[in-house]
């Protein structure tokens, strides 16, 4: 029978890579997911545990895709603990993607928010001038620095900058302070961000205030992935169906972005 994107397709985890003590990448074979667009996500079923939305990570090998997960709650810890040879179910891919500009580009990622940034890097052109900013709390939480560098090998102009809140690696301070510094010095043709909402909020503000094109990929609690359950609504928008990627100008008019998310009962909670 033909594949139904809204029904779980079962795949086997072929390889698990430890990125940090709390972050793992799980690789599997799947043509559909391997061709997912940056910013798109899958609903990932861990049988007997839960199902959660996951941005679709790239793999070096053709026909393969991956999920990079930080163990945090019940569902993400369940996925983190999946071993090589074990099976999971995947639905999707869901959501829209980024509008990639040409020229001088800035990518700002924090934590597993780096996943769509890495997939987006595979679409930049060799002549683009690319800066990647990786934010982390501390040194042992930094990952994908080498991957970002290797994806940009062919670029004459590229910088991968790491900042840690405690200064244990790279630049010291919040990644959003680095964003502000960069944008105040140079014009960028496009800014792309994914990670903690406050980080995205400040990045969007920094770019909007200088009339620089910016897009952010939002994360919300999700159940259906197709715009019927309403769990992921952000103001008038549904993160799953209207997003996950939104323009900065659109977000600046959204009363919930940067301030609220909804809990499992649908009640607004402050960040």
């Amino acid at each position, binding site marked *: *029978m033909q594949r139904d994107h809204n029904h*779980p397709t079962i795949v086997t985890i072929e390889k698990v890579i430890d990125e940090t003590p709390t972050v793992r990448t799980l690789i599997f074979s799947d043509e559909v997911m391997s061709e997912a667009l940056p910013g798109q996500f899958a609903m990932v079923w861990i*049988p007997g545990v*839960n199902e959660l939305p996951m941005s679709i990570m790239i793999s070096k090998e053709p026909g393969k895709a991956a999920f990079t997960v930080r163990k945090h709650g019940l569902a993400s810890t369940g996925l983190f603990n999946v071993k090589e040879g074990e099976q999971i*179910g995947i639905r999707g891919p869901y959501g829209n993607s980024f509008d990639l500009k040409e020229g001088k580009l800035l990518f700002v990622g924090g934590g597993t928010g780096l996943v769509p940034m890495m997939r987006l890097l595979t679409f930049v052109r060799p002549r683009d001038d690319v800066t990647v900013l990786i934010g982390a709390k501390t040194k042992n939480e930094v990952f994908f620095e080498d991957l970002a560098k290797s994806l940009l090998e062919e670029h004459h102009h590229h910088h991968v900058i790491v900042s840690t809140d405690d200064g244990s690696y790279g630049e010291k301070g919040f990644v959003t302070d680095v964003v502000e510094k960069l944008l105040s010095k140079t014009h960028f043709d496009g800014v792309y961000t994914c990670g903690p909402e406050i980080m995205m909020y400040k990045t969007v503000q920094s770019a909007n205030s200088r009339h620089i094109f910016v897009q952010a990929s939002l994360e919300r609690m999700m159940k259906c992935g197709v715009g019927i*359950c309403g769990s992921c609504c952000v*103001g008038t928008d549904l993160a799953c169906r209207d997003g996950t990627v939104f323009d900065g100008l659109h977000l600046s008019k959204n009363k919930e972005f940067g301030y609220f998310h909804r809990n*499992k*009962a649908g*009640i607004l909670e402050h960040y």
Partner: protein
Amino acid sequence: MEPSLETSIGQIQLDRPVMLASGILGISLDVFKRLYLSGAGAVVTKSLSIEPWEGYPNPTILSVKGGGWINAVGLSNPGAPNFAKMIEPNKDVPIIVSLVGSIPEDFEMMIKQFEHCQVTAYELNLSCPHVAKVGLEVGDDPELVKKIVTAVKNSTNVPVIAKVGLGTSNYLNTVGTAIDSGIDAITAINTVRAMAIDAEIQRPILSNRYGGLSGTPIKPIALRCVYEISSKYDIPIIGCGGISTWEDAIEFFLAGASAIQLGSAIGDNWITVFHEINKGILQYMKRKDYSNIQEMVGLAKRS
């Protein structure tokens, strides 16, 4: 003369006959406004309980290969008090408040919360097939239906609708009991109790195991129910179950529904579906020379 999409379900007057069904997208006023502007004649809220409910863990929704959806969201909702506060500023969107509870006092208490809100109607959820002690378990108990409908009718002047579904007892008796107790209209039907099992994983997919089937596979069942209710009783009916095209909508009018609700079609076709169905109904009415929806209601019952 241009045909009109206006319809009335008893005393409920709507500009357009296509509503958002309960359980779908119904937790934010901003989204309600967007749906109204997209062509929905009214929105039915998620079923509200006295306390906030988190619902079941994921997986809660998936499609059925070949068509339709199965869900066991578990009636997650922010609770009637929070919800009432949220919709209080609303003046533009016709909102039908869906309520779920186990005893008459639950419903009475919740209706009090909406004193300062503009509520077009209440819809009593007597038919959710996957949560214990509420929904279908209430709908299957005629004595309880009688008590709840009577209590609700005594606590409000706003029209009250009962949403029925296919449980273990004859749903037509539930409809009859609700009518005898003073109900103003019937919504038929809810999702049909169902399940999904994965052949590879060899276990049910929904965390709750059982869920409700919605979408195109249940349309002929829903259509049959609307036809049966309208043949047996004189009560305004809202058709619900698998409606995704204007043709589906017309079929429900012909079977006896004065308005319709949809939900799964949004998962398949997104919210442009409201506009598409409205447009199709208007074209059909022009072609058949009808000036209003009521002229079509129940026509299929001609001998």
